[in-house]
């Protein structure tokens, strides 16, 4: 149906922003995240696209994750400060009106306090819409582990989110 070039272009349109956002979660650095995403698509372009297509989504995130981790290994810095980075660099997008600003800032902050792997799962699920099965492929783990970890993440968030008192850091 779609040609390989169309599939690549379509994947690019659809995943460019989610992939950058995901890679940045790992590298903590926007430029490194962009490099990882560029590398991901270059690698994609050397694959047999038609054969890859049914599991294209997990493939992209898996490769992007590895590229991002390579960067982290080389630079030797882990994205401990991603929360600060994020708030500093995120342009207020027009979409922000969807939710009251304060709420979204608070929720973002709650997410940034989660452990690394849980943060990744939140990104994969809520920004990119991956299924449990796809997330398990990306993180090379089992579907039930994904289920338990994501539930754990939501559990932590829920406890703070539904309690309107402010938590101090």
């Amino acid at each position: 149906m779609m040609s390989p070039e169309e599939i690549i272009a379509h994947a690019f349109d659809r995943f460019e922003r989610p992939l950058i956002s995901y890679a940045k979660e790992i590298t903590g650095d926007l430029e490194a995240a962009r490099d990882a995403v560029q590398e991901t698509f270059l690698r994609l372009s050397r694959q047999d696209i038609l054969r890859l297509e049914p599991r294209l989504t997990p493939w992209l995130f898996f490769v992007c994750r590895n590229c991002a981790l390579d960067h982290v290994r080389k630079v030797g810095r882990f994205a401990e400060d991603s929360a600060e980075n994020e708030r500093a660099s995120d342009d207020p997008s027009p979409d922000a009106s969807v939710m009251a600003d304060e709420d979204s800032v608070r929720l973002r902050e709650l997410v940034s306090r989660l452990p690394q792997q849980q943060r990744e799962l939140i990104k994969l699920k809520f920004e990119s819409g991956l299924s449990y099965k796809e997330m398990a492929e990306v993180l090379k783990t089992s579907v039930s582990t994904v289920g338990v970890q994501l539930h754990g993440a939501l559990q932590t968030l829920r406890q703070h989110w539904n309690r309107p008192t402010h938590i101090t850091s």
Partner: protein
Amino acid sequence: MNDPRITSYALGELEGPDREAFKRELAASDDLQKHLNETINLTKALGALPMPNEQLENRSALLEQCAKNQSRRRKTNILRLAVPISLAAAASLVVVALLNQAGTPAPAILAVSAPAEKSADEIVRSAPQNISLTQQEVKQPAADTRSAVVMEKAKIAKARQMGAARGAAARAATDFDGYIHYGSPIVAGSDVVVADSILTRSGEWNTEGYNAIRENAFLDVKQNPLSTFSIDVDTASYANVRRFLRNGTLPPAGAIRTEELLNYFPYNDPAPKDAAPFSVNLEVATAPWDAERLLVRIGLKGKEIPASERAPANLVFLVDVSGSMNEPNKLPLLKRSLRGLVENLSDRDRVAIVVYAGSSGLVLPPTPGTRKQDILAALDNLQSGGGTYGSAGIKLAYETARENFLKEGSNRVILCTDGDFNVGVTSQSELQKLIERERASGVFLSVLGFGTGNVKDSTMELLADKGNGNYAYIDTPNEGRKVLVEQMGGTLFTIAKDVKIQVEFNPAQVAAYRLIGYENRLLAKEDFNDDTKDAGEIGAGHTVSALYEIIPAGKKIPGALSVDPLKYQTPAPVVSGVPVSGDLLTVKLRFKQPDGDKSQLLEVALATPESIPFFDQASSDFRFAAAVAAFGMKLRASPDAGNITWDDMLRIARQSLGDDPGSYRAEFLTLIEAAKSLALEPKTDDDKSPTQP
């Protein structure tokens, strides 16, 4: 409560018996319900978090590089596989060289053209011309892809400084300048060729997807007495063509589906008198582009069903609210169009709304038409935002439709999107299978396309086709009103499904014929009586037109057609005493009731009139349809358009406007004018200043 099933359930990941068991526990425990509700609220909040709007800086260069890598990759494979058949390759090289001299575009644009499902070695067999390209290509040292991109990056940064605002506007204006699909000799051999890439001459990518269309050729009646096709009530191509012309660009050939242009307009065919769901009307006259030839119009008119009598509707709108819908001609236009539909709902109808984006969800549970205010309020509250991907969106929509299934009514999911139908099922084939499965359960799918630049035209048409539905493209509030208010019956209420047409031509009267349009809808002659073969649907009040161009018996068939007489076939003996039939042709129709599995047959013969009416004597519908067909052919630069001019079309259309309810025909005049001025303008490749619409 440390039960991961809560989260799984909230995210639609719990399936089958686990889901049922969980539902039972849920019903028994208030605590669990509270926990679940909180979790659902949280997932909504998370799904609505704005995604950082970061993009790559060198997007087009990267995509270009990706395309190069991909075609190099395939070519290398071809070369490897081609070595054992080098003799054959050498022979075909000569052919390719000739073809290239004959004026096909530069080799760089000649990407491998082969149906996407084919494996590399099949490509070798089906497209030997690629081998010559491969050999040229391989001699060049393979550049380091990464550094090429980096170099491009610098160039682009420079270009940015020079003209920051050019971006989107320039891109829209330069779309589709360098087409190679239609009429290119390298694609000969298969009926519908998948356009391999939409790479324009300027190297820019456009993500709109169109399949190339090869026009039907004249067929010799002796070899092919039967012509079989499925009806098509889609109209999207017309609105899309209009968009191109209004933006000052000629549409690419692949975007012009002549049958959809024809069927965009209402015609005055009489409604059926008896119990049949539609009437069949035939008319013949000379062709406006060649008085030696005839034109036959087949017109179907679906039964009109007054709003008070029509079956109740169970509609689920599946609305794309991803960030890309946040443009005036997308979500706001969608809301406005749907508002018109809601105002016309009857009390027995039900409407639900499912959205998909970063997360998907039911924003309006099935609500009866008596509560229009609630439905309108839910529509008004739709906002775009979040990611571009929603899981389980389409599944949820179908589930909602099935849970409220109206046995006696019309059950339909209406997908509204700008082309990112990433509705939670990853691969295309999976999506198609899902739609086909749901069709069997009685829930049909219609697709409404919005916006520009990312319209996956071919896929959207295909999805609606697989879902027994129609595909309309909405680009203006007027178009929204036409599709969802004026033609609501046709858009939403199927009166007959799997409608197939088979025409048998009488060789005593007809030498050759050509079906205009319907290239994507052709069926094998055996499919006509095969009730398992899917075909098009006709809605209440719909009119469907098909045109055949006919070369009468005794007239010469254009040279390309001549086939040597068959050696081993004995021609049917002429039985003396049996008079030769005076019929020109017989039209047979097969259709099923909307809920039926067995088809019914209708047959109408068209006698050859004693004297064929001249074109100018034909009905206004006939003449108008001919003008539209000529417009389609001319836009596609079809050799079959003969020497008809834009001015001829203008004259014919102007004289055949008729009553023109809705002024659609009058609007068509403005499109002919636009096409005329664009076609006459000398086209230059380098001067691509954005044209104002």
